[in-house]
């Protein structure tokens, strides 16, 4: 993860089961699974295995050790599944998420809607650093951004990708880079690989 002086940028921590929790839900974005990561997670979550459900988004099922296992296609499916579980979770339950930043915040926002408080949720950033960028001017989202400056998918303006981050939108702020001097666009660098 990149370091930044902008304090809205979340700091992510490794996932550790909170033993005080009732039921535990682990949600993993499949593409962020490095070799051996599932086995590692199974080890870490062994103390709560009996009360663990794991949702794997877009990955093949492993051998076991991750409680009751469900397979889902994508972040959108996870969000839908959470919305349907609206009354299913209690104040004592815990949610753990591993994924890219857009994935983490899609899930965290959906969990907040069904009542999960901040202290019930742990987020671990893995995989690509690519960003979801929110255009300050047309309010459109551009997904999968890996460069310091990106053409907005909505209005086409060249946006400077700032470190200022909104959890509600799960996105970084993009601001027109040549608004003061139209056409003066600095060199574009690959920075969020």
């Amino acid at each position: 993860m990149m370091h930044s002086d902008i304090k809205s940028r979340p700091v992510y921590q490794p996932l550790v089961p909170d033993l005080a929790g009732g039921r535990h839900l682990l949600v993993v974005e499949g593409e962020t699974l490095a070799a051996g990561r599932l086995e590692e997670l199974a080890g870490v979550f062994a103390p709560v295995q009996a009360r663990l459900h794991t949702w794997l988004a877009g990955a093949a099922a492993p051998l076991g050790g991750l409680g009751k296992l469900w397979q889902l296609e994508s972040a959108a499916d996870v969000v839908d599944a959470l919305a349907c579980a609206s009354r299913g979770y209690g104040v004592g339950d815990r949610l753990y998420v591993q994924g890219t930043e857009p994935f983490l915040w899609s899930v965290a926002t959906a969990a907040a809607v069904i009542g999960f408080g901040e202290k019930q949720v742990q987020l671990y950033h893995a995989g690509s650093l690519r960003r979801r960028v929110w255009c300050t001017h047309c309010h459109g989202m551009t997904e999968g951004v890996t460069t310091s400056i990106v053409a907005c998918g909505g209005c086409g303006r060249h946006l400077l990708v700032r470190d200022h981050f909104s959890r509600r939108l799960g996105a970084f702020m993009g601001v027109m880079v040549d608004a003061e001097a139209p056409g003066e666009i600095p060199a574009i660098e690959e920075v969020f690989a």
Partner: protein
Amino acid sequence: MTIAFKPEETFRGDYTYRNSDAAVLRFPFPFPEDRYMYSVNIEPHVRSGPSDVFMRPFDVDEHYIAECRDKAITLERDPGRCQVLPHMMLAQWDTLELLMESLSADYPALFSLVKEGDDFGSRWTWTNRPLGLEQSFIFGDPATLPCEPFEYITRQAQGDFAICDQRDNNLYMDAGMVTSQADWSLEFDVGMSFMEWHGPVPLAHQTGVFERALKYLLMLRLGQPVRRLNWTMTINPRLDTSPENFPEWGTDRASVTPDNAGQKVHLRVELQTLWRLPRSNAILFPIRCYLASLDDLARVPKWGARLHRVLSSLPRELVEYKGLTRYLPAALEWLAQHDDGAELPVGTESGVTTLAPR
């Protein structure tokens, strides 16, 4: 007290906004010393201080009608400038009550509030003479107003407003009416916590300014509002310097020369007050914006010279954050002619009662 409103002046297009001499003299000049750095510059919001704008909790001046009109234009183009999260309804009524009570008590010739009772469910009648509005409604029933209560009343007030919900020992920006901001986006920030929305501010986090300010605000008491001044600079007397419309006003920054800086470059001072709200326990944060051109300010000799010194010694991080980089040299060159280098008394008072002719 009579205020000579200037209903026709504009804050966009032909920019006909001008300050009268009286408005220049009451300008809340923010620099007591020759250097500026962020600090927890919070003090009780009492009816006294070096500028006349502190004499009433909510200041109304000659630009009132024109500013309300500019706000309506901005909202028409972008209704998202007013956002209220669903749990903020009580805070909306708190804000309406505070503004209506204060304005009608301090400006009885302009505003009046007639109440049949104080509780929710009572009929209230609000009259706003400068804007020619009269509205009878049931306090506590949003359906009896043309729009939600926060939007209704803040459309009739100068400046921006944010409401912060207090929970988990933190403040969350859960409502706002933001049409004259210094380059920050409500749409992006709504729902953020105190440290998150202040994320982009340089240097102040490291020196503990925000940590101390937050602890102080969490203890803010009902009936004891506080205030602080914040400032930046704007090219042309433009209220809507939103990041949303940066493509519209960004090029203005490149238009400043040492010859036109006096008219083009404006000091933009925000009188920010903080109010504990009674029913919701939220904090209301009105941001009242005052604009004066360098020409205006230099008519007060102390202010012209002091601004020159503050801007010449401003830390590089602040210059960049406030977006001054491109035109600061031109502004400094213009201001230099008003600074003879003589020592200036500490304090923000103008030190004069009349202005040199224009």
